[in-house]
């Protein structure tokens, strides 16, 4: 077992990426995630890697595209407005079947919004914020330790399925300090990157990284191939945490920072005699719809809590499919829901 160290979420993300073999980072400053590029600028040169502060988020994601196409484990990090700028590149990365990791430390929006924690980029992350028929694997840690653990998964999943993977955090997770342990990861079998542009080096055949298909039939076939991959991911890679669900009357669905506040709320609700559980999606895409559908047979109602005006709740409703009522409680723009507010919502539901 490794030693526990006290680290800021953003820095832990950086160290975890390096431990996962990431040697290339391209980014642009934006609050509240500046500790990630700062950390990478300090550490990567010492690991023989490259940190480059790009001229914009647009350039940064296209550098990621180049480096990923060249076969490297590469990452970029930003916060909401910056991620919007990266959406073009992310669509190209998805279209060209390239693996990379993108970190979004979400802040309040829309527009310039604010710099406090938010979860209002859920749609953008899970529904394909860029153009075209694509998906991204989206991982939502709720502690600094989980940020570390999921970073390793993010790179492996990206390489395994040749697609972009996003870690969706928020300002609070990025700024808070918790003890972390960098556990030894079991290496998994990954396909060789024999498609990467390295120079032909005697290989004979050219390697071409591309997302252009001018013939509609070929473009459709390409999309079907992507879809096949997405189906496989939906089947194999769903992750969630179930907490206190055994005899819960109300199931709260929440992710990330909000989910840990829910845990505090559940304890308070318990002391008032209410039975409340939590289903915490760890993968936001693929979404854990089966476990939610199964829970619908047991609980009286669902309450989705988000730091938004209601985004994930749509997926919860699809999963519940009308079997039970689905309520929503959200704070937004950088406001964080308190345990007291959540308990009050549960009280309302249970009448």
């Amino acid at each position, binding site marked *: 077992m490794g030693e*526990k160290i*006290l680290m800021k979420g953003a820095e832990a993300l950086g160290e975890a990426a390096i431990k996962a073999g990431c040697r290339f980072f391209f980014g642009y400053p934006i*609050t*509240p995630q500046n500790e990630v590029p700062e950390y990478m600028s300090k550490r990567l040169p010492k690991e023989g890697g490259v940190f480059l502060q790009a001229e914009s988020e647009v350039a940064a994601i296209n550098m990621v595209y180049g480096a990923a196409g060249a076969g490297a484990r590469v990452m970029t990090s930003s916060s909401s407005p910056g991620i919007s700028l990266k959406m073009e590149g992310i669509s190209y990365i998805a279209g060209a079947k390239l693996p990379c990791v993108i970190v979004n430390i979400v802040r309040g929006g829309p527009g310039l919004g604010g*710099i*406090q924690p938010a979860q209002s980029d859920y749609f953008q992350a899970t529904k394909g914020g860029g153009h075209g028929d694509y998906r991204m694997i989206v991982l939502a840690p709720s502690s600094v330790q989980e940020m570390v653990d999921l970073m390793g998964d993010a790179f492996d999943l990206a390489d395994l399925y040749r697609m972009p993977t996003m870690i969706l955090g928020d*300002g*609070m997770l990025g*700024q*808070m*300090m*918790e*003890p972390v342990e960098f556990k030894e990861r079991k290496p998994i079998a990954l396909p060789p990157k024999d498609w990467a542009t390295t120079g032909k080096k005697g290989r004979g055949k050219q390697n071409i990284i591309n997302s252009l298909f001018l013939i509609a039939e070929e473009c459709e076939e390409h999309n079907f191939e992507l879809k096949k991959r997405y189906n496989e991911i939906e089947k194999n890679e769903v992750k969630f945490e179930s907490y206190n669900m055994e005899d819960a009357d109300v199931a709260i669905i929440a992710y990330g*920072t909000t989910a*840990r*506040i*829910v*845990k*505090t*709320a559940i*304890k308070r609700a318990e002391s008032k005699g209410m039975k409340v559980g939590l289903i915490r999606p760890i993968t936001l895409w693929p979404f854990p719809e089966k476990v939610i559908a199964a829970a619908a047979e047991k609980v009286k109602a669902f309450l989705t809590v988000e730091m938004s005006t209601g985004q994930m709740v749509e997926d919860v409703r699809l999963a519940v499919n009308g079997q039970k009522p689905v309520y929503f409680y959200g704070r937004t723009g950088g406001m*964080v829901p*308190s*345990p*007291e507010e959540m308990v009050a919502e549960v009280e309302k539901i249970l009448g």
Partner: protein
Amino acid sequence: MAQEIILAGFGGQGIMLAGKLLTYTGMLEGKNVTWLPSYGPEMRGGTANCTVIISDEEIGSPIVTNPSVALVFNNPSLEKFEPLVKTGGTLIVNTSLVTIKSKRTDINIINIPANDIAIELGEVKITNMVMMGAFVAATKAVSFEGVMDALKKTLPAHRQNLLPLNEKALKKGSELV
């Protein structure tokens, strides 16, 4: 058992550092811990505060609305956090700078002229350690040895010579409780 602590004062009073040290001590003593800073434009000077939770159980929310302990280093911090301290909780006041008197009667109030003591000891920068000493004595959330151990582990090599001074500050703070 959980201690939910807010430390607040001016930027530059070592608030964040004291919070981190406390968190680190808790971690070394095998507790679950979180440290959450206020961040944003206010971190460029002005008021600074951070929340530290030290708990035997898994920590849910890292945000605390009603702290069990508040260490206030200046007047604005007292105004902001004094009303929020839980009934039965503890308010540790740096009376060298805080001139407002708390009117709460349902909490334990500890007055420490921390700046004056630090100056007496020869280094105003250890004001935060005087306050920490009071905190440790009042709450027993962590041990003195733990704090000293954490300091030893976090002070860079060329600052290790400051350990005795920090120890004096801690002791002095605790003696006034």
